[in-house]
């Protein structure tokens, strides 16, 4: 029985999803179309969480900082006004650069808060959000003069809360078109996500991946063996931040709208809940968990408001139910994992 332990949580989510689909009374094509969009938007976020878990740092809730890096670079590209194809490449390069810088800072901070990485990374996420807000809500237009006046609010201070990036949305539309359910989409984002997944898998099997694993197993022994613990942990965080920024660029590109102040909020919660739903623990996570988790968790996410509408005549209830599921999954995982650790 013991070898099936890791499938209990995914099976639980599968049963909930099936019940949700039955209660929501929706077509299969609708769910597939929604799943396609959510897979493209959130896929890489889950992969971003894998490295810190391997390095024994628990869930990295500061992937929001990576998302912020992506939003900053997207805003700068919009501000200067490149043509979409060039702008997209520049945005990716810029966000990778920014996330290396931010990842370094986060890694240093988390190395000082060993044993409390999760709550510290969460507070770093909140703090980064506020600093980001002060730059774009207050400093933009007063201290920083933008090239493109259209992105500012009419009073001249602060960036608009929503920017249309319609031209970026059509970037992939004519390449490898496919039809998934009701959605007309392109195969390119899926291929990108699968390639990133394979890269992540290869890194976990490489030298640096083994180092991360041994640091995660036992920090003191790893130090004795000659592994530079602090550096390894920092590399894990930097890679996680880079992946998160790439994920946010995919998200914005697919959505076609840049929500400047709210686009990055709660990403960490949903990504980590989805990864845990796929059977990951705080000690062990791989890309299999990520890909199982995203389908199970987001299926539940799609159907629960509709199920709430059908059963209770109140769509808000489904909304509450799904945030309860998201947070509840994390609490449940915390209870299971930390209990094992203390034993």
């Amino acid at each position: 029985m013991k070898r099936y332990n890791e499938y209990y949580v995914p099976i639980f989510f599968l049963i909930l999803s099936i019940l949700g689909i039955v209660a929501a009374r929706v077509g299969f094509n609708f769910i597939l179309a929604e799943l396609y969009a959510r897979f493209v938007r959130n896929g890489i976020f889950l992969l971003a969480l894998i490295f810190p878990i391997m390095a024994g740092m628990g869930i990295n809730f500061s992937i929001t900082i990576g998302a912020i890096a992506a939003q900053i670079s997207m805003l700068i590209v919009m501000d200067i006004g490149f043509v979409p194809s060039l702008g997209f490449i520049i945005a990716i390069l810029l966000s990778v650069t920014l996330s290396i810088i931010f990842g370094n800072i986060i890694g240093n901070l988390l190395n000082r808060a060993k044993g409390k990485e999760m709550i510290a990374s969460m507070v770093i996420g909140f703090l980064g959000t506020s600093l980001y807000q002060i730059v774009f809500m207050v400093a933009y237009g007063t201290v920083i003069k933008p090239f493109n006046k259209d992105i500012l609010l009419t009073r001249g201070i602060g960036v608009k809360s929503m920017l249309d990036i319609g031209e970026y949305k059509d970037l992939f539309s004519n390449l490898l078109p496919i039809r998934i359910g009701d959605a007309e989409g392109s195969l390119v984002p899926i291929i990108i996500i699968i390639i990133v997944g394979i890269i992540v898998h290869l890194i976990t099997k490489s030298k640096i991946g083994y180092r991360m694993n041994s640091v995660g197993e036992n920090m003191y022994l790893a130090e004795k063996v000659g592994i530079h613990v602090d550096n390894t942990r920092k590399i894990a965080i930097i890679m996680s931040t880079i992946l998160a920024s790439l994920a946010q660029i995919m998200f914005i590109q697919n959505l076609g709208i840049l929500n400047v102040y709210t686009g990055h909020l709660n990403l960490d919660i949903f990504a980590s809940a989805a990864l845990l739903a796929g059977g990951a623990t705080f000690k062990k996570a791989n890309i299999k968990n990520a890909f199982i988790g995203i389908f199970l968790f987001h299926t539940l996410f799609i159907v629960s408001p509709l199920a709430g509408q059908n059963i209770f005549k109140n769509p808000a209830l489904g909304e509450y139910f799904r945030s309860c599921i998201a947070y509840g999954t994390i609490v449940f995982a915390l209870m299971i994992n930390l209990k094992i650790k203390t034993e």
Partner: protein
Amino acid sequence: MKRLRLEAPQLIMISYLVILAVSLKYIGIPYMDMINDSLIKWVMNGVLVLSLVPMINVGAGRNFGLPIGISAGLLGMCIVLEFRLEGWLGFGVSILIGSIIAILFGYIYSIVLNRLKGNEEIVGTFAGFSFIPIMNLFWSLAPFKNRQMLYPVGGQGLRPKINLDGYFGGILDNFLKINIGSLTIPLGLIMFFFILCFMVYLFQRTRMGIAMACIPENEAFAKLSGINIDRYRRIAIIFSNILAAIGIIVYSQSYGFIHLYDGPFMMAFPAVSAILIGGATKNKATVFNVMLGTYLYQTTFLLSVPVANALLIPEMSEIIRMIMTNGIILYAFLYEGVRKRNEKV
């Protein structure tokens, strides 16, 4: 003797306060109004901050699961409103019912936290976050009948902000109010706060309180001397939850509304930040830390609102408030990490 620890966060906070106080003079807002408001804000949030003390002293970390205790208080007030109890009766009964519910919630919360010693803060954060959607389900399904509490249309589910006018809104604020010139002192409100603070202080001096204080110092030793650690932790967690329930009732009567649904979502972080400003450490917090920290924290943000408005950027005060709040909490985590490492060497 309590020595006031002055570290980077406290220094930044005090200098920010001084800058704000000086700039108020140029904006032309009378200081007296601000002092009057600051006294009310102090007690309004003070009881919530006070509720962190028992849990810190028993070594169960700073209570990021504050929304659980708050939900108990909100539920107590909703039950009182359902039976239309007004004035002092309503206030007293809502404290009574809120405390009873807080005992129940606190007991369940303590079972969770006792299983996971050493990780209370992250568990508490998520326990609090996940409790709010559960309460949201309850608020929208509960069979309350008082029309003033329900959504105006449909008659199903409580409204997000329930007005307390005609029940017990401002009952403590207006009790024994003393006017000295333009200075208004809400003596009843401050006395209520002091009585609660004194109770916590006395509790720390009792046999049980001293036993609790030695648990975080040396858990193995405490266990050997025959202290039932789990039981003491449970009592402290329940006590914290009761104080949080009373805290939200005091908060609501000053605010004038009961704020349901996502209202308590982010209430834990400002409270934790306030007690850290007051100089509380990981395992030790005193009533004095609570009073000083809450006053500094709340006054700073009270003053920042008119200054930000004068600069024509009203969002700025809220953003700076968030930066300060989270920055101070993060500083505490980092600082503790360094100190722990030094001790090991």
